[in-house]
């Protein structure tokens, strides 16, 4: 399904669309995403939906690893050379505008949180901030003061960054050219 969906039919947060070319940027983005996702999954372990709870219990073990990996790399880069620190500082300016969106609840998220199945992402902000504060303290970095990136449309309603079109095009090119992998 994902291979034949239009750009506007993807409901992802814009953070995950950012370009993957710069290591400091990728590590910063991984730290942000995994810290947020771990806080969500950790709560989903007690979801009323058994499958979601089981997936979350499994995911928690894996994402804990990725969050630690990203956090250690951020500290290593920030406390490394002048260049690696500058690259991290630039990465924060690129990534941080997309942080606020992670904690904005979509009406669907609020509804399934209300029924005990999902998690309202706005409820994990404190945990996210506490983890990020620890990482930034170890990395001797100030909290980034960057305004959230403005939305063209609504939140998680198919509004994307400019990077999305090229990204989706590349990911779908094989499936569109060779449907069902037959050639």
């Amino acid at each position, binding site marked *: 399904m994902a291979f034949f969906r239009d750009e506007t039919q993807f409901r992802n947060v814009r953070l995950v669309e950012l370009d993957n070319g710069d290591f400091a940027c990728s590590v910063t983005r991984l730290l942000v995403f995994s810290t947020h996702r771990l806080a969500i999954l*950790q709560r989903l372990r007690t979801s009323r939906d058994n499958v979601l709870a089981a*997936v979350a219990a499994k995911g928690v*073990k894996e994402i804990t690893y990725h969050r630690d990996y990203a956090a250690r790399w951020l500290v290593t880069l920030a406390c490394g050379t002048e260049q690696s620190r500058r690259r991290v500082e630039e990465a924060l300016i690129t990534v941080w505008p997309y942080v606020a969106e992670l904690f904005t609840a979509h009406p669907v998220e609020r509804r399934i949180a209300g029924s005990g199945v999902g998690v309202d992402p706005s409820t994990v902000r404190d945990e996210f901030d506490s983890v990020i504060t620890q990482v930034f303290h170890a990395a001797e970095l100030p909290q980034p003061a960057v305004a959230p990136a403005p939305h063209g449309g609504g939140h998680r309603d198919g509004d994307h960054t400019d990077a999305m079109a090229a990204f989706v095009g590349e990911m779908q090119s094989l499936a569109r050219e060779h449907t069902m992998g037959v050639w």
Partner: protein
Amino acid sequence: MNAVTTAVIDPSVERAREVAASVTDPEMPMLTLVDLGVLRSVDRDTDGRVVVAITPTYSGCPAMATMRADLECALATAGFTDVVVHAVLTPPWSTDWITDAGRRKLAEHGIAAPGTARVLKDGPIALTLTVHAPVVHCPLCGAADTERTSEFGATACKSLHRCRSCGEPFDRVKEI
């Protein structure tokens, strides 16, 4: 550790169990699915079908589809044509389930076995900023003087190491 049920003695189920237990992991073919702790049960349901339950190792591990196909193929070859393979998510797989035989086989093939997995409690999970590098013995020469060269190795579930004593690089299955 492996919940291979043995409640009812049915010779054909016993045979199906033996066949399923001999299927190997596509990435680490020195290990059977039993060695890896992936094969949870082999039974026969009321409709006479052979029901195999396996636990995914990592979410999204590409080996799962192959394991499923290999189980179906091995059982079909042994004459079991009506087979269902279920994926069981709970409890989540852990490298702690790799059997002693599995650990020995890993080492014999130059791969260091994982240590004990970290236990995650309910509530917020603490960040680990300092590397608690466990002492990893070189699976080739046995020396403890080794270093980790990359947190990701030949597959995402392994890390890459090097022995300072014999100079050889080796993979290690990461504990999860």
